[in-house]
């Protein structure tokens, strides 16, 4: 990996140049409805951005999988049905100031979107996007990225990682896309900068590590074997099944596909965010729901993130951002739940032969 140094001014000039070149730039911006909060938004000039203030309220996924998007237009004609698919090529865009947990979320969803079917809309946007993330220093007591294999300094999914050093940032050029973006920018680094950056990265990691111990590898198997454990009955008592957790989650990616008429003979096929936390998600046409209570729906959330996805892709479908806990009106807290389940999984050794 190569490295470069950017002064604050140097970074501003880069963003300004991108905007002048009509590149879409997305950055954390103070929320209009609550100046204490931050949202990822398209910016018009670099002054709008608020880097490193706090974790944005929503993750980056809406820029790749919008809450609702048109897949195709259809029109009934005298001879049949005309289908017009939407373009899968997206305009170039750069995301500045992403948190490593959000970028790791995109990398996790990549695997699903390229699993049994390659989702061209998702990858059209992914390929058109260059991501510059920042070393996270906005963690709070609800963050647990280090427990799920990520970290405030993680580079998974990022093209560039910026780490604050004296007078500016040290840039880790993670991918060739990142190198291309910064090709004609930046200054050489020296050993002192590298040491400062390394210290900042370790310090950031140390801040979040105590929040939740690393989830043991055996946990996925324990979950799979304990689908009918009585703990599920009482784990989700306070859960409303509102799905706010899934909306703000960087890795929840489920969607529903609907056809909607726009006139007598024309319409659109859309896909809309969906969530396993709602009853309708699994309700059959007959009216039967195999996940009939919130206990079962919440179990699905935990099983998918910590057992089903790991069994397919070898890692956890959670990046430890803690947004689900912050968004929950019922006071559900994922790190607490996971800690409780991990403790249970380690409480008594399973009898051999079972």
């Amino acid at each position, binding site marked *: 990996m190569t490295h470069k140094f950017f002064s604050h001014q140097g970074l501003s000039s880069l963003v300004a140049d991108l905007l002048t070149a009509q590149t879409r730039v997305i950055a954390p911006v103070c929320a209009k409805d609550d100046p204490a909060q931050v949202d990822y938004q398209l910016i018009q000039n670099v002054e709008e951005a608020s880097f490193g203030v706090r974790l944005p309220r929503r993750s980056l996924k809406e820029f790749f999988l919008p*809450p609702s998007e048109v897949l195709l237009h259809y029109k009934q004609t005298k001879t049949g049905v005309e289908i017009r698919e939407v373009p899968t090529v997206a305009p170039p865009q750069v995301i500045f100031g992403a948190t490593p947990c959000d970028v790791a979320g995109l990398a996790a969803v990549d695997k699903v979107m390229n699993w049994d079917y390659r989702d061209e809309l998702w990858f059209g946007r992914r390929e058109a996007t260059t991501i510059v993330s920042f070393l996270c220093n906005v963690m709070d007591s609800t963050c647990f990225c280090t427990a799920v294999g990520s970290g405030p300094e993680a580079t998974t999914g990022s093209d560039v990682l910026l780490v604050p050093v004296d007078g500016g940032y040290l840039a880790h050029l993670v991918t060739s896309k990142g190198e291309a973006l910064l090709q004609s920018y930046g200054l050489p680094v020296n050993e002192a900068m590298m040491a400062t950056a390394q210290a900042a990265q370790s310090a950031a990691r140390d801040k979040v590590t105590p929040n939740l111990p690393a989830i043991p590898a055996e946990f996925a198997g324990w979950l799979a074997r304990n689908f009918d454990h009585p703990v599920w009955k009482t784990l989700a008592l*306070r859960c409303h099944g509102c799905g706010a957790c899934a909306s703000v989650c960087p890795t929840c990616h489920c969607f529903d596909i609907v056809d909607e008429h726009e006139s007598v003979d024309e319409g659109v096929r859309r896909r809309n965010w969906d969530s396993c936390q*709602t009853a309708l998600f699994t309700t059959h046409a007959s009216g039967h729901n195999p996940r*009939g*209570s919130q206990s079962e729906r919440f179990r699905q959330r935990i099983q998918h993130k910590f057992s089903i996805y790991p069994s397919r892709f070898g890692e956890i479908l959670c990046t430890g951002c803690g947004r689900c*806990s912050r968004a929950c009106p019922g006071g559900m807290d994922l790190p607490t739940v996971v800690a409780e389940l991990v403790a249970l999984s380690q409480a008594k050794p399973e009898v051999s032969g079972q």
Partner: protein
Amino acid sequence: MSELQETARKLLSEGTVSVVIGYEEGPRGVRPAFITAPAQADKLIFDTRCVQNLATYLNPRRKQVAQLGRAAVVVKGCDARAVAGMIREKQIERGNVVILAMRCGGVLQNPETNSELTTQTVSVRCGGCTVREPKLFDHLLGELPPEPPVNTHRVEQIAALMKMSSSERWTFWTEQLSRCIRCHACREACPMCFCVKCTAEKSQPQWIDSSSTPQANRAWQTMRVLHQAGRCVDCLECERACPEHIPLGLLARYVADSVERRFEYTASDDPTVPAPIGVYRTDDDEEFIR
């Protein structure tokens, strides 16, 4: 042991109820608690962080709670209106729930903070509260704290909206509702949204498109707030649940004010008082129906 804890312990140990739904200290401030053993009753707390309306958990279709058995529920005077609403609308039977009503001096907007009640931090719904001493209860508990400060934020917002031209208001709500992602978290967190099948989920015909489009978002929120007319208890759980931070309480408050003006009715904590939607009066002049 507090009066609340003692009452809960007694109800559980005597077998009057199988679960006490109350508040406890959680990892992020106060959270709902489901106490099933007398020995755990000392977990129960009640203070200014107890924002949540626990009546929501009495919905018989919350199977995970219903399976615990007969419940006692801790309510504030305002939350008692939701219990009354559920009794009035035959969702629960009065004799089948034990109401532990707390005398209340106002709550914060956010159950995670532990700040003083000020005009900025107190919930907008606490101003002018008439039920600090709840009227619907089996056990009335706690000392009556002083009146809370008044947060005028929402009153000012509504006044500002009413001063706008209709096209300005349209612009305001179009912008707000453009953020709606149709997750229906507002509905799920609402104690008075207990329909077996929501209109938004009916597909034959599809009254409201499930996609988040300007038209469907408007239709959804308008439908929901109209179905809440005279029923909404203004607990603002919808607003707390909304992951997009849409000020849904403004819509609900506006409709509640209209109901009050037209029918001299506010969501009552007396389950025997019928709501306007449930009565037919020959002297109703219906002057606004043209």
